[in-house]
């Protein structure tokens, strides 16, 4: 439930920002270059920070400004920096073995967006939602989630898996900012912190993978089956 009511222009702004985040995830889906993925992820995080801040402004949740600043700082700057450093250290420029061509994966992504929209619409009908912004938030949340999973399925590089996971997390964060802006801020802070830890853990494991397993591609990790 949204306790604040938005003017039409603000609604457009929200929709625009939310869908911009969605488009940026498509950039990640379509590009071959790992660096582009990271930049798109950073831009997506900044978009989400902008959403947080504007919700704080329109809904009068001052603590959301802090969340926005932290999102921009950690998700938008520090995490991409960490991943970028990892990319440089592993010396992997691009994802060589995508299962599908970028255009096909984009079409699948578009289908996932439609699916998410349908699910959200059904939810909206079931909940008798009057404002569409909640349906939009649900759509973006589910779409980012599914696109993140799609990335993890289609890509084989370890870094792409990390990025896929981060996209999923971004989707959840985006949705939670719009749907439940009143959620205790402590929880959001801890989730940001948790994400940071998990990315560092991933970073260490990827480097172990490279030194001890000799590959960072899931196609190379075939020792454990059955």
């Amino acid at each position: 439930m949204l306790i604040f009511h938005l003017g039409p222009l603000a609604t457009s702004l929200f929709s625009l920002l939310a869908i911009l985040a969605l488009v940026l995830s498509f950039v990640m889906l379509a590009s071959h270059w790992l660096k582009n993925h990271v930049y798109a992820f950073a831009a997506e995080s900044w978009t989400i920070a902008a959403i947080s801040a504007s919700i704080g402004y329109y809904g009068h949740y001052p603590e959301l400004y802090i969340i926005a600043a932290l999102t921009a700082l950690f998700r938008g700057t520090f995490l991409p920096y960490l991943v970028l450093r990892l990319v440089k250290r592993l010396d992997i420029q691009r994802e060589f073995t995508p299962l599908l061509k970028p255009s096909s994966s984009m079409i699948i992504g578009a289908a996932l967006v439609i699916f998410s929209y349908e699910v959200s619409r059904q939810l909206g009908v079931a909940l008798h939602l009057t404002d569409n912004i909640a349906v939009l938030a649900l759509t973006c949340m589910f779409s980012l989630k599914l696109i993140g999973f799609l990335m993890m399925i289609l890509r084989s590089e370890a870094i792409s898996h990390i990025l896929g996971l981060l996209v999923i997390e971004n989707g959840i964060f985006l949705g939670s900012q719009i749907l439940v802006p009143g959620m205790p801020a402590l929880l959001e802070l801890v989730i940001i912190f948790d994400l940071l830890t998990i990315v560092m853990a991933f970073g260490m494991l990827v480097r172990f993978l490279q030194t001890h397993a000799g590959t960072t591609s899931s196609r190379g990790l075939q020792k454990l089956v059955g």
Partner: protein
Amino acid sequence: MLGDIVLQCGQVLTVMFLAPLLHGFITTVEERVQRGKGPSIFQPYRDLWKLFNKSLLVPESATWVFFWAPVVAFTAMLIVPMLIPVLTNFPLPLSDMGDILGGGLILTLGSFFILLAGLDTGQPFGGLGSSRAVMLGILAEPTLILVFVGITFLDHSMLPFVANHLLAKNPVAYWSPAHIFLILAFFILLTVETDRLPIHSTIPYEIYMIDEARILEYSGPLLALLKWASWMKQFIFYTIFLNVFLFPWGLSTTGSFPSVLLALLIILAKYGVIGLLMVGVDTMQSRLRFYRYQEPLALSFLFAVLAIVADQL
């Protein structure tokens, strides 16, 4: 009423006579940007004059399709301007004989006949160009229809004039994500349909050719008609893009002579700007391998889908 009919003729004539100018402008600027001198921007008119004065050479294998295709294509391009807002933002007497989808179908009819003409003579390049064009069309046409569907969802009407009114008057609709994504989707289609990079090549070299290959057999007045038709097609696409999607302002609202003249001047300005944008695309983009041509189209499709989803919200 008489004034409206004059205006309607004016729309068709505007498209007819400004289309070569637009093409000449883009070609010249492109040359300038690439540090060449470039032809005069009126060169297309001279080309047309020259071609109309040449004799016609017909391949032995040609059938009636060969003669009719340019005529049909050219006529199609004459009909479409009646349906869309070129000069005025209100419908003129014959504007209601087709909606936005109808206009799209007539445009496709023109391309279809050129395609047949490419196959008709049985020459290898014609077939090559036709098959490539069909491959492109298979992906581009559904997206184009999806874009039209998107704009229909936005304004709840199939008429381009309604969309123009809605977008010009209502900033909320104009800045809605649905509309912005439609613009992006249509812009990509614009590059595809008006023979620009990254899919089409700017170099007239057989390996890269798509549309030019279809008309290699033509000469003289028929070639002039075909060229003119393709320039008009470009102009029509610009018109839809600008007057329906991107910049719905600046059209004549009353139909009085000064306002039409003003609209004409504004058309020159805004078409020029988009022309410059296209020059930028042409200069900065490199041509995609033919097997990757579906990527920009997939992107366009994606934008159209996003626009439709955003529309529903």
